[in-house]
């Protein structure tokens, strides 16, 4: 197993923390993992992205130019990373604010309206967990138990009471993701 | 009376501190450094803290202070003595740590290190020799050079329009919360030497109690740099330096 993932969106959408939870989940299953963020002022209000690699083997480059999966949360990131998905790979995007949807036909394109759903659920902070749920539906590379353990590891203890809410959001994401092509 | 009679212990009226070793000093005759070194040696001996003192020498005439004083010493880069002393004191809080710095070292190149060490209230003693000139490098302008005073780099006298004003840094240090004891002394006559020694002792005693930084400025002469005899220098200092840098305690809490 080897999965090379880019998650990209606005700073503040939980891009980096989603990547972190994924990485921790991989760690729980004994995989090699790497988590390489874009860093610096661009995190604040600008675009943010993180490359997450889960692998059974030693990970070579933590920085990549093509990905098995791109999880895209805004138009700028879609413009930047649509072409970086490997042929046959997956592109997942949140439909909110997307004016020019993806056009590639040699990849699997999925849409998840997590932003709308999180507003509907009155749980804006669950947004990234809904997206993560969608991803895990189409690429079940880690088990739900590992994700819960990953959440426990990556969240400070004072936030552990939020874990059931996050688990629910992941399940919602699994339900609402839809294939577009 | 023979020499043998003269050197009998009961006839002893003065001896130099054993902390001050026998290395001949490189200081010019009339220089204030030798006197201040002697006072430090006496204070260390009287407090019986030779094993617990770590000195930090500057860049300037006193760069070789460690050659004369018999305890552990570190030689700092120019101006960095308060940072070096911070590193020592933070890691060896049970020791007495002091810096010995000239005006260029403390008030020009090391201004930031001086102010921040004082502002953090490092429990160190800063001994500041202010003679208004760079002695070691050959008599150039110092931050504390008086207006109109001639030096190698202001040969027509310090012009405030070009060089700015004499920096009274000790007055600035008084305002910092971290300083506990700030005083200005001199060593040009017996009375002033006694007072300066008391001030140095107070600084060392303070540092044991952990209540902040002690700054002891010694307004000093540099007869070579000033191009005067030692006696003329002392008079010139009283007439010109003291009005700009008045002697006395500035802060004692």
């Amino acid at each position, binding site marked *: 197993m080897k999965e090379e993932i880019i998650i990209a969106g606005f700073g503040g959408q939980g891009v980096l923390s989603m990547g972190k939870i994924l990485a921790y989940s991989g760690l729980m299953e004994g995989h090699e993992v790497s988590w390489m963020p874009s860093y610096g002022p661009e995190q604040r209000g600008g675009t943010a992205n993180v490359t997450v690699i889960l692998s059974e083997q030693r990970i070579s*480059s933590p920085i990549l130019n093509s990905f098995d999966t791109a999880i895209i949360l805004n138009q700028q990131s879609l413009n930047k990373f649509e072409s970086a998905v490997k042929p046959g790979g997956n592109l997942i995007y949140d439909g909110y604010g997307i004016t020019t949807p993806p056009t590639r036909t040699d990849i699997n394109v999925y849409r998840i309206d997590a932003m709308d759903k999180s507003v509907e659920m009155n749980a804006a902070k669950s947004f990234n967990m809904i997206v993560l749920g969608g991803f895990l539906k189409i690429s079940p590379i880690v088990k739900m138990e590992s994700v819960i353990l990953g959440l426990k590891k990556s969240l400070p203890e004072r936030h552990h009471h939020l874990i059931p809410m996050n688990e629910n959001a992941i399940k919602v994401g699994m339900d609402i993701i839809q294939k577009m092509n | 009376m023979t020499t043998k009679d003269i050197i009998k212990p009961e006839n002893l009226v003065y001896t130099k501190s054993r902390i001050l070793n026998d290395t001949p000093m490189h200081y010019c005759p009339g220089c204030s450094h030798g006197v201040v070194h002697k006072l430090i040696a006496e204070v260390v001996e009287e407090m019986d803290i030779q094993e617990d003192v770590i000195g930090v020498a500057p860049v300037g005439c006193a760069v070789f202070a460690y050659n004369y004083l018999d305890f552990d*010493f570190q030689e700092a880069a120019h101006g960095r003595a308060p940072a070096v002393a911070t590193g020592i004191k933070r890691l060896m809080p049970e020791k007495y740590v002091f810096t010995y710095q000239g005006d260029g070292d403390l008030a020009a190149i090391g201004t930031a290190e001086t102010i921040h060490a004082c502002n953090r209230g490092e429990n160190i003693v800063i001994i500041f020799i202010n003679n208004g000139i760079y002695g070691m490098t050959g008599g150039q302008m110092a931050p504390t050079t008086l207006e109109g005073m001639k030096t190698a780099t202001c040969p027509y006298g310090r012009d405030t329009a070009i060089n700015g004003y004499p920096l009274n840094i000790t007055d600035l240090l008084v305002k910092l919360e971290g300083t506990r004891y700030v005083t200005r002394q001199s060593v040009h006559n017996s009375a002033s030497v006694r007072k300066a020694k008391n001030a140095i002792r107070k600084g060392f005693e303070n540092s044991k109690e952990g209540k902040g930084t002690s700054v002891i400025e010694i307004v000093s002469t540099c007869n070579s740099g000033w191009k005067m005899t030692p006696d003329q220098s002392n008079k010139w200092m009283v007439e010109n330096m003291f009005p700009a840098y008045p002697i006395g305690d500035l802060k004692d809490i």
Partner: protein
Amino acid sequence: MSEEIKLMKGNEAIAHAAIRCGCDGYFGYPITPQSEIMETLMDEQPWKTTGMVVLQAESEVAAINMVYGGAGCGKKVMTSSSSPGVSLKQEGISYIAGAELPCLIVNVMRGGPGLGTIQPSQADYFQAVKGGGHGDYKVIVLAPASVQEMADFTALSFDLAFKYSNPAMILADGVIGQMMEKVVLPPFVDRLTKSEIEKQSPWATYGKPASRKPNVITSLELESKDMEQRNLKFQAKYREIEENEVRYEELACEDAEYLLVAFGSSARVCQKAVELAREQGIKLGLIRPITLWPFPTKLIQSYASSSKVKGFLAVEMNAGQMIEDVRLAVNGKVSVEYFGRLGGIVPTPDEVVEALKAKFL
């Protein structure tokens, strides 16, 4: 008990490893992309557990001089910064080398010159291995390529620094500092006791007992002949380090016709490039210098002299700095080419393979 596998950033790993390896003091000033080192230390509050001192200084200049003071007392002390801040520290590093004090300096490099960029770079290679400050001196330079090595090299740097009474540097970059990977932290080691310091560093200023002469920490000798002797002693020490402390990693070199030479995060990119090239039938290998000074000159010499190797490609995130040391080692026997990206851009594995083809195939 075996240590737990943790997931953390390279910067965080350095902080935790420092506490665990018995570091006595850290002095630093914030700068991206390495501020997590001091942030992690301040969060951990090691002064409450191991007694390690952590202090935010007023500048990088002050921080390195605090290191000088602490190191002069025989303590295990360190500082960290990123490129512009390490430039400021060069004065202190020269004095530390001149006074032969052991310490650890971490440089998590960013792009320059000047204020440059906060993005990763390896453009401080020359500064780290050729001197940086004034005078003839050398700093032992270790280049980690993983978060695990950030942790491991913290303790190793201190060991080497004390073994040779010489400053040691971890030369990382924004990728290694900011990336999270698995790491097993080193076990806790007690800080040095007073008597251990007196035994290990009898030259240190820990307070003069009646039984010995004063110890003086200085780099000053006004007499030229004394200063020459001092320098000759340094040089003898540097030759000893070059003889004993070269570290490197070889990947797929046995049958290689072409060799990449890369350190730190570039070496990670090159590992992937080796995989890609081998898929295409190109016999490519990778030499990863772990110590940049001392440089693995003899190793590169031996490959250059073998009949198999047709060329070397130095891959660096700079305009070609380490390549000079590769060329000195190869000494004209085969061709040595350069590929790199500048200004904070990390080369991709594909670019490396394309560059190799363009230069050699």
